[in-house]
């Protein structure tokens, strides 16, 4: 692996550019390099690992039992990548993708590193941009003191710091239990774990239970439950939440049916599952669809994780939530696909080499459907019932405003909603409001999220300064386009 510190040292063109250095991106990069492709792996974080293996090479957490063996498995993946021939650009933001007009069939990606931008060409692209936590809009979720559960986990992995006061963890999904056990082991004072998993999910999830019982998830889940449920104060059947405080969090109001209590706290960590990050693939023009079971927008992919745009594949949790081990395997399969399309691997070799990886992937994904169904968020946490709840954190648009625009003004989709309310037009580019806006419109109009659609996103997918754009060398064609 050749690290890049200065963007000037990046080559003009690569066989493959991989975006994201989590398990999928690292595995794709290694495999592609082994198959003889020239590979650039660009990642906006300072160190490899993505979020799941965050800071795996630098973490100050010395007691290995706190983060658990699943985390330390990331060391092996990074070590394998370090031995590869791939070029690695950390701290590098990829902000655009489009056709490379000089080389038809190839792509041109906008990269920014250390305040300087460049356009780099790639014959194939693998997006391994992973997942983000599902937005969890409750009253007061913008108060300092409220964070995502994932953020607390990142602070723990990256810096060895934990919330210093009375801490409440709220929401649903496997990460909720994992974080509770990790933070408790690291010495955090967890005053309550508030579980919002709807009891009604069980009836739908039962059909998927046999697979789950035969899956690797079961043992992990039981271990986590044993580590947390007996020792921490667990409140199940939570139906409503509101963070309270003036300029800072002071407590959380908890509803469990008709029972209401307020728990004073200094930190509130929210989690309502994870979603594929679709900003990049959406802006690249890849087709997406709404998956009812994961309750999320997913890119439409073939068996090699190739998207509807020829030459762009999407691996890892960005292809649909499957977890870290699955992400690494999907990265390998996507690399086989890219190598085949470049003529570096024959069809039968590709299929033969991918077969054992596919077998392992199918074992890893067994039981996943049960988790999707059991932890499907309750409707009131997807679309907040209180009108005053902020749903677009950037532009401070409320749930009531979106409902009003959908009901009274007849706004039918999220793109039209932008024009009326500016939701999704702030710096996060809809990452923290998109799913909620879709849900609010869908609920108000009595239609499905699939029919409502999603934001049409466009590059730059991450902010880039005008100075960086202006400093890009202009091609002759670009100059002719504006100078007469």
């Amino acid at each position, binding site marked *: 692996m050749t690290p890049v510190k200065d963007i000037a040292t990046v080559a003009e063109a690569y066989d493959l550019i991989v975006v994201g250095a989590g398990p999928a991106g690292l595995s794709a990069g290694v495999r592609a390099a082994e198959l003889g492709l020239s590979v650039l792996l660009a990642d*906006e*974080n*300072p160190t490899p690992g993505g*979020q799941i293996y965050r*800071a795996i090479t*630098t*973490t*100050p*957490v*010395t*007691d290995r039992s*706190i983060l658990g063996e699943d985390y330390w498995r990331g060391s092996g993946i990074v070590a394998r990548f370090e031995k590869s021939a791939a070029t690695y650009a950390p*701290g590098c933001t990829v902000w655009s993708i489009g056709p490379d007009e000089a080389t038809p069939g190839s792509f041109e990606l906008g990269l920014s590193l250390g305040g300087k931008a460049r356009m780099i060409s790639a014959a194939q692209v693998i997006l391994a941009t992973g997942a*983000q*936590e599902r937005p969890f809009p409750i009253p007061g979720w*913008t108060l*300092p*003191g*409220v*964070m*995502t559960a*994932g*953020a607390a986990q*990142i*602070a*723990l992995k*990256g*810096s*060895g*710091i*934990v*919330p*210093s*006061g009375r801490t409440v963890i709220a929401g649903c999904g496997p990460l909720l239990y994992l974080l509770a056990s990790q933070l408790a082991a*690291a*010495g955090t004072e967890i005053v309550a774990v508030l579980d919002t998993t709807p009891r009604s999910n069980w009836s739908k999830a039962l059909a998927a239970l046999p697979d789950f019982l035969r899956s690797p998830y079961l043992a992990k889940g039981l271990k986590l439950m044993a580590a947390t449920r007996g020792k921490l104060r667990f409140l199940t059947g939570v139906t409503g939440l509101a963070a309270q405080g003036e*300029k*800072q969090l002071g407590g959380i109001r908890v509803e469990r049916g008709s029972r209401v209590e307020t728990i004073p706290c*200094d*930190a509130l960590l929210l989690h309502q599952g994870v979603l594929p*990050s679709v900003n990049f693939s959406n802006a690249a023009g890849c087709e997406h669809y709404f998956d009812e079971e994961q309750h999320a927008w997913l890119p439409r992919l073939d068996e090699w994780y190739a998207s509807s745009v020829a030459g762009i594949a999407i691996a890892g949790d960005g292809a649909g939530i499957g977890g870290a081990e699955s992400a690494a395997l999907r990265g390998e399969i996507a690399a086989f696909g890219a190598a085949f399309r470049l003529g570096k691997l024959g069809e039968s070799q590709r299929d033969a080499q991918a077969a054992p990886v596919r077998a392992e992937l199918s074992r890893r994904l067994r039981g996943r459907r049960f988790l999707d169904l059991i932890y499907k968020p309750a409707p009131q946490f997807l679309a907040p019932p209180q009108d005053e709840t902020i749903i677009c*954190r*950037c*532009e*401070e648009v409320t749930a009531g405003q979106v409902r009003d625009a959908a009901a009274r003004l007849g706004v039918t989709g999220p793109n039209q909603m932008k024009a009326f309310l500016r939701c999704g037009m*702030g*710096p*996060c580019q809809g*990452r*923290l409001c998109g799913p909620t806006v879709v849900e609010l419109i869908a609920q108000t109009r009595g239609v499905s999220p699939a029919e409502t659609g999603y934001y049409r996103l466009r590059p730059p997918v*991450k*902010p880039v300064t005008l100075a960086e754009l202006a400093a890009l060398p202009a091609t002759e064609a670009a100059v002719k386009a504006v100078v007469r």
Partner: protein
Amino acid sequence: MFRPMRERAAAAALNFTFDGRPMTGRAGDTVAASLLANGIVACRETPVSDTPRAPYCLMGVCFDCLVVIDGIGNRQGCLVPLSEGMRIETQHGRRQFGEALS
């Protein structure tokens, strides 16, 4: 808001300021993590309503950790590694241009 866990590997100390107040961080930490570890409650005020905000996702998604670093606004604190002598400031509202010139 945050504190170091009981056992943590040692790292070189880095000096920085937040709104002019001297603070100490840890080499390898991001700007956002350093602010949290120093007990900073809010790092910016929103352009819409001047409401205080703090880092929310720590993974580059939410943009609530925007701060001014060495005179340049709109920096995502969770993606920038802390370095010696950094001058970090609360971002009041939208990015102010001309900061870099002063």
